[in-house]
């Protein structure tokens, strides 16, 4: 069974304090790994797609990386507006239209 495990469940940082969020996955034949951001009371918002080990994607203070077993979301010099829950996602086995399997997320709080 495909699984996505995110750690830590919650992380509190000071503004400017860099850190990384982890996503480990078990899947037979990775067909991509995706990161989403979810703000309180809102739907998830797509951030990145990674397809192969060694691939990196960047957006503002966020950088996502992928290895054969896990993905990291690195946050450099975060600001309070980066506070959100970050979700790691993989395609559901069997492909097709049946969508995505979501991790439980890491709740990130950036304190001013």
């Amino acid at each position, binding site marked *: 069974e495909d699984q*996505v495990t995110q750690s830590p469940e919650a992380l509190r940082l000071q503004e400017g304090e860099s850190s990384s969020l982890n996503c480990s996955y078990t899947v037979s034949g990775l*067909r*991509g*790994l*995706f990161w989403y951001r979810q703000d309180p*009371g*809102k*739907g*998830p*918002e*797509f951030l990145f*797609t990674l397809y192969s080990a060694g691939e990196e994607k960047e957006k503002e203070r966020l950088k996502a990386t992928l290895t054969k077993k896990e993905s990291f979301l690195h946050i450099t010099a975060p600001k309070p507006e980066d506070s959100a829950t970050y*979700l790691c*996602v993989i*395609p*559901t086995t069997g*492909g*097709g*239209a*049946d*969508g*995505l*399997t*979501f*991790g*439980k*997320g890491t709740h990130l709080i950036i304190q001013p």
Partner: protein
Amino acid sequence: DAGITQSPRHKVTETGTPVTLRCHQTENHRYMYWYRQDPGHGLRLIHYSYGVKDTDKGEVSDGYSVSRSKTEDFLLTLESATSSQTSVYFCATAGGLAGPSTGELFFGEGSRLTVL
């Protein structure tokens, strides 16, 4: 932003009553999804659609049914609501030939349902 509207945004109902949640999209996306989100769980797929009148079950489909008579509308029905169906429900869409395999789903704002 993909135009995805969910209604109602909030609903309180009693056990045993039927409930219908509506998702309306203006992007002409082929794929539409209903997820539920509960504390301690990731988003879980209830049902999905890959075209008009083409729907299939997801991971947690028991107690739910869906219909898609037009590209833009995807309805989720709880035939007889139970307290275990208290949750936040999200509609999502995916477009293009690749659909969800790109990883990019567009989500609505969610519908919070409380079943007493």
